[in-house]
């Protein structure tokens, strides 16, 4: 069973067609690299999948639940970190994760918080307020709230944006560890991430899917991924 299904999703902002008739599905164990230039419709597609935006036409199904018909059920199985990893800056990391755990009604919230702090290597900043953290830590907090309930579906909007190489490596390591049990979509414009992280690549430009294929096929398109990217999104 596909854990994520996008069926003919469309969304416009005013006269601009941000997402146009986008369809794909993601199975358990797949990590989708969601590529595309800025403004291509990556974030909008993710917002449609997570139920933050309502699609004008088409539907999004997460873990078998239609996001617009059964939003709460769908969101229970969903972990999502929006672009820039927003969080309540005035809360400490621990308070914020505890809030996320409580809001989700997790069975043993204290234990989930402890395990997630450990998993995301946030222990040393657990008592700090989020607004005082460096970007790398803030991104990890965003990631942590998305995985605290061990969701079947994980959608991450540029989780490695602005991180240094060590931090990027960390995030990828954590993702790889859990990927086998989940359906994951990761948006990025760092092409090297495709080879290291993803099992499949979807390229989107001007709101439309330009390519949807396995990592191996994508990498065979050419030596220079930047050139491949330019050709596909032109």
């Amino acid at each position, binding site marked *: 069973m596909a854990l994520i299904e996008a069926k003919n999703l469309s969304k416009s902002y005013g006269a601009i067609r941000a997402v146009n008739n986008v369809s794909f599905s993601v199975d358990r164990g797949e990590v989708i690299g969601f590529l595309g230039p800025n403004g291509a419709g990556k974030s909008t597609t993710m917002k449609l999948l997570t139920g933050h935006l309502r699609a004008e036409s088409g539907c999004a199904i997460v873990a078998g639940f239609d996001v617009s018909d059964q939003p709460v059920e769908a969101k229970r199985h969903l972990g999502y970190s929006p672009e820039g990893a927003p969080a309540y800056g*005035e809360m400490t990391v621990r308070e914020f994760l505890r809030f996320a755990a409580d809001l989700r009604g997790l069975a043993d919230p204290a234990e989930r918080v402890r395990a997630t702090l450990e998993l995301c290597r946030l222990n040393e900043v657990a008592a700090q307020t989020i607004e005082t953290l460096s970007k790398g830590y803030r991104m990890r907090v965003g990631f942590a709230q998305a995985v605290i309930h061990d969701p079947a579906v994980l959608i991450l909007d540029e989780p490695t944006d602005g991180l240094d190489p060590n931090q990027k490596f960390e995030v990828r390591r954590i993702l790889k560890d859990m990927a086998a049990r989940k359906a994951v979509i990761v948006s990025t414009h760092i092409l090297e991430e495709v080879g290291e992280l993803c099992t499949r690549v979807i390229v989107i430009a001007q709101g439309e899917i330009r390519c949807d294929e396995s990592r191996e096929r994508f990498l065979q398109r050419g030596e220079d991924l930047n050139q491949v990217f330019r050709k596909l999104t032109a």
Partner: protein
Amino acid sequence: MSSPSENPAPKSAGLAAFGAILRREFAGYFRTPLAYVFLAVFNAFAVSLAFFVGNMYEAGVASLDRFFLYHPWLWAFLAPAAGARLWAEERRQGTIELLLTWPITVWQAALGKFLAAWLFLACALLMTLPVAFTVGWLGDPDWGVILAGYAGSLLCAGACLGVAAVASALTRSQVIAFVTGFLACFILVLVGYGVFDELFAGMLPSAMVDEIRRLGLWRNLEPFTLGLFDLRPAVYFVTVAFSGLGLSTIIIERR
């Protein structure tokens, strides 16, 4: 088919989510010094208006009606101050995207936020209890009437908060939310004193002008402070509060 999630949430999760929002929002007021400034300002004004403007002491009557007289003004100013952050801050920080992709309905989130803010205003109001005890010490007031006055003031605060919630849902700026919320509440105060009567008199039949005057905040609070039991003002306050809550929910849902 097995459950797709490794960690399925219990069915009572709706209540858990609502409780988590309520606790976070209420605690949120005390995370910044602003809350203490707010409580201090509310108390200073509540007491000094009653004594220095209302001449409560010189009146020589063991009653709090002169104390409550100024509460619509106080709430018109301070409920929007407390309510400005409700949605505007979520928008500014971008956390609204988290909140609305977590397993909670907009309605549950809105109600949790609203009740937390109302509870905070109730704290401000409770801190004025020494005024009531002073009156009790100096004279022999009717405690039932005083209790009714406090209940009325709390309902009035809820109505102003309803207005403030709508203002906060419309913008990502707390300042704009506060100013528009305050203006709307201010109009509700002035309407009751007949400030706009002449304006309306030219356009509307006089019976309607009278009806509009009934929408003033003090008009509806006054019966409480006199200990008169009347359902209409209570219904009025609750209606304004919940209309505001409902409207703010719709605005956020349609963002």
